[in-house]
C-alpha cells in the first residue's frame, strides 16, 4: 500500500510538473506564435484635409508591406503588421470616437496619427485613459506633450523650432546675397499653426536683428488676397516668412506672382514642401523656400524610397509624408525592442528607444529618442527650394542636392 501511495504521488508530481512546464513554455510559445500585430492609424481621409490623408495612407501601406516582406517582427516570431485605419474627418469628437473604436473594437496595440493638432490633442486623451501608446507622427502643436501624459509620443519637433530654423536660414541666405536682406515681413493664417509660429518668428527675428516692416495675418480660406498682399508689399520687405495651409498658399502665390512680388525670398513654414503643392504650383512659384524635414534628394536611400512610392502610387513623397513612413518603422523598432504586442510593454519600449542613423532612420535627424515628456529630441530640419517645378533640398549644405538659386530675386540685382 505504501508503494502504491508513493508511486501515485510521484505520478501526481509528474503530472503537475508537466502541466506547469507546458503552461510556462506553452505561453511563451503562444506568444511567439502571435500571428499579427495590429496597429491603429488615425488619419484625415475626408474633408478639406483629405488631400494629404490619402497619401499618408499609401505610404503607411508601403512601409507595412516592406516590413512584412522582410520577415515582420522578428522578436515576435515573424508576426506581421496589420494596420487598421480610422478617419477623423479633421474633427476632434470624431477623432475621439475613432480612437475608441480602434482601441476597443479593433484591439490595436498602438496608434499612429496625423494632424490636425486638434484631433491629436483629443485622441491622445482617449489613448491615455485607455493606456494605449500613441505616436503623433505629424502633429506638432506646442502642448501635445505638455500635459504630463505617459502614453503620448511626438515624433516631430515643435512649431517654435521651425521659427528658429527659419531665422538661421535667413542668415545663410543673407550671406549668399551679400548682406542685402534687411527688412522682414510676416504673413500667416489666423489659427494655431500661423499664430504660434508668428510669435516665435517675431522673437527670433528680433534677436537676429531683422526689423519686421509688415506683420499681416489673414483668415484662412479668403477668396481675395489682393488687399492682403498689397498691405505686405507696401512695407517694401526684403524677404517674407509665411505660414499657410495648402489652399491659401496656392492663391497667395498666384496673387504674389501677378504682383511681381516673388522677386524676393519667400520662406514658408510648411506646405510648400508638400508634393501636393509643387505638383500644382511648381512652375508658378519658382524659387520659393520652405522648411522641410526630408527630400528624396538628400541621399541615395531617400531617393530609392521615393522611386518605390512613385512606382506604386504615382506622385512624389515629401518632407511631411515621409514622417508617417518613419513612424511605421519606429513602431516596428519598438515592437522588436519590447518583444511583445502588449500595450504597456510597447509604451516602455517607446520611452527608452533610441534609433540611430542607419537602415531604420530615414530622416536627417541625429536620432529618434523621446524625452520624459514624450517629445523626440533628435529632430532637425532641412530647407527646400522649388527649382524646375519640384522641391530640391538646398540646406544644410551636407544634405543639399543643389545650390540655392538666386536668379529670381531680382530686387537685389543692381
Amino acid at each position, binding site marked *: 500500500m505504501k508503494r502504491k501511495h508513493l508511486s501515485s504521488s510521484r505520478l501526481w508530481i509528474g503530472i503537475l510538473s508537466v502541466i506547469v512546464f507546458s503552461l510556462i513554455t506553452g505561453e511563451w510559445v503562444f506568444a511567439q506564435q502571435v500571428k499579427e500585430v495590429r496597429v491603429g492609424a488615425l488619419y484625415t*481621409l*475626408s474633408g478639406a484635409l*483629405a488631400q494629404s*490623408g*490619402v497619401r499618408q495612407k499609401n505610404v503607411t501601406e508601403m512601409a507595412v508591406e516592406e516590413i512584412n516582406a522582410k520577415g515582420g517582427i522578428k522578436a515576435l516570431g515573424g508576426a506581421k503588421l496589420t494596420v*487598421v*485605419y*480610422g*478617419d477623423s*474627418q479633421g*474633427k*476632434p*469628437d*470624431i477623432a*475621439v*470616437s*475613432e480612437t*475608441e*473604436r480602434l*482601441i*476597443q*473594437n479593433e484591439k490595436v496595440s498602438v496608434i499612429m496619427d496625423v494632424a490636425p*493638432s*486638434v484631433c491629436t*490633442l*483629443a485622441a491622445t*486623451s482617449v489613448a491615455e*485613459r*485607455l493606456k494605449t501608446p500613441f505616436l503623433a507622427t505629424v502633429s506638432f*502643436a*506646442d*502642448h501635445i506633450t505638455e*500635459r*504630463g501624459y505617459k502614453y503620448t509620443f511626438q515624433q516631430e519637433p515643435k512649431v517654435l523650432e521651425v521659427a528658429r530654423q527659419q531665422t538661421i536660414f535667413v542668415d545663410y541666405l543673407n550671406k549668399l546675397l551679400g548682406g542685402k536682406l534687411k527688412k522682414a515681413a510676416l504673413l500667416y493664417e*489666423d*489659427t*494655431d*499653426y*500661423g*499664430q*504660434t509660429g508668428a510669435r516665435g518668428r517675431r522673437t527670433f527675428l528680433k534677436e537676429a536683428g531683422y526689423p519686421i516692416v509688415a506683420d499681416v495675418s489673414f*483668415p484662412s480660406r479668403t477668396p481675395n488676397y489682393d488687399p492682403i498682399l498689397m498691405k505686405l508689399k507696401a512695407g517694401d520687405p526684403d524677404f517674407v516668412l509665411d505660414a499657410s495651409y495648402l489652399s491659401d498658399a496656392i492663391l497667395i502665390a498666384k496673387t504674389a506672382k501677378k504682383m511681381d512680388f516673388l522677386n524676393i525670398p519667400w520662406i514658408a513654414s510648411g506646405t510648400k514642401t508638400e508634393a501636393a503643392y509643387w505638383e500644382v504650383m511648381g512652375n508658378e512659384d519658382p524659387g520659393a523656400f520652405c522648411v522641410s524635414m526630408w527630400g528624396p534628394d538628400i541621399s541615395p536611400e531617400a531617393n530609392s524610397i521615393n522611386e518605390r512610392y512613385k512606382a506604386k502610387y504615382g506622385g512624389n513623397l515629401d518632407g511631411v509624408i515621409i514622417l508617417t513612413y518613419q513612424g511605421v518603422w519606429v513602431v516596428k523598432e519598438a515592437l522588436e525592442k519590447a518583444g511583445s504586442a502588449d500595450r504597456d510593454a510597447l509604451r516602455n519600449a517607446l520611452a527608452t528607444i533610441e534609433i540611430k542613423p542607419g537602415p531604420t532612420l530615414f530622416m536627417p535627424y541625429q536620432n529618434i529618442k523621446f524625452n520624459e515628456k514624450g517629445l523626440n529630441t533628435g529632430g532637425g530640419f532641412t530647407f527646400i527650394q522649388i527649382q524646375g517645378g519640384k522641391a530640391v533640398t538646398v540646406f544644410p549644405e551636407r544634405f543639399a542636392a543643389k545650390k540655392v538659386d538666386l536668379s529670381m530675386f531680382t530686387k537685389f540685382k543692381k
Partner: protein
Amino acid sequence: MKTLISHKTILFAFLIVIFLLLPKVITSTFYIHTLIMIFYFGYLASCWNLMAGYAGQASLGHSLFVGTGAYTSSFLLMEAGLSPWIGMWIGAFFSLILGLFMGYLTFRYRLKGHYFLLATIAFAEIMKILILNIRTLGGGSGIAIVLKGDPFWQFMFTQKASYYYVIFIMVIGILLLTHFLLQRRAGYYLVAIRENEELAKASGIYVLKYKLIAISLSAILTSLGGTFYAQYICFIDPHSTLGLGVSVDILIPAIVGGIGTLFGPIVGAFVIIPIAEIARSYLGGGTGGIHLIIYGLFLIIVIVFMRTGLVGLLSRLNILKGKV
C-alpha cells in the same frame, strides 16, 4: 384615455431601466461612447426643440450656447481651478444673457422665419471668429482640459460609464421639464404662438415675454450640454463647439425624429448618430467621403419623405402618441 397613459408610463419606466442597465452589459467603451454621443445630441436637439418645435422659432445659432457653456466652464477650470459643476452654471448665465440679448434684438425688430435664421447664423459665426482671435481663450488652438486633482470635483470620471449616466440624467431631465412645461399655461401659450403668432397676440398673449422664456430655457440648458461636452472630450476649440456646422448637427436629430414632439429629438439621435458612426467605420477609412454622402442622402430622404419625422410616422401608426 387613462389606460393609454399608464401603458405609456410603464413603457417609459421599462426603457429607463434598460438604459440604466446597459453599461453593465456593454463593456466596449466604443459602444458606450456612441451611446453617450447619441444622448448628447439628443439632449441638445431637445433643448433646441424647446425653442423651435414649441415656440416656433427655428434657430441656426444654438452653437453659440454650446460654445459659451464649454468655454466658460473650461476657462474657469483651467485658469482658476473652479469646478465645472459650478462653472457650468456661470456659463449658463452668460448664455442666458446672450440668448436674451439675441432674442430681444430679433424679436423686438420683428425678425421672422428666414431673417431670424440668417441672423442666428451670423451671431454664431461672429462668436466663432471672435474666439478664434482671442488668445487667452486658446484662439485657434483651443483649450485642453487636463486632470489636476480630484476627478469627481472636476467633473471628470475615469469610467466612461459615469459620463453615460450623467448625460442620461440630463436627457431625462429635459424630457420631464418639457413635458411639465407643456402642461402649464406657459406651454399652451408657446404652442399658440407657434401655430399662429398674430392670433396669439390678438388673444392677448404677451408674445415677447413667452418667446424670451423659451429662448432663455433653451439657452441655459444647451449651455449645460456644452460643459458636458468639454468635460467628456477634454478638448474644445472653435470648430468643434461654435459655428454653423455645430448648429446644424444639433438640429438634425430633432428634424429626423420629429420637430415639436417630445421624444422626436431623442429618437432622431438614435437613428442618425449610429448611421453616421457605422457609415464612417465601414466606409470612412477607405475612399474619402462616402460615409458623408450617405449621411447627406439620409438627411434628404428623411426630410423629403418623412416630413413629420419618425415620431410622426410612428404616431400615425398609433404606436406612440408623442405630439402635443
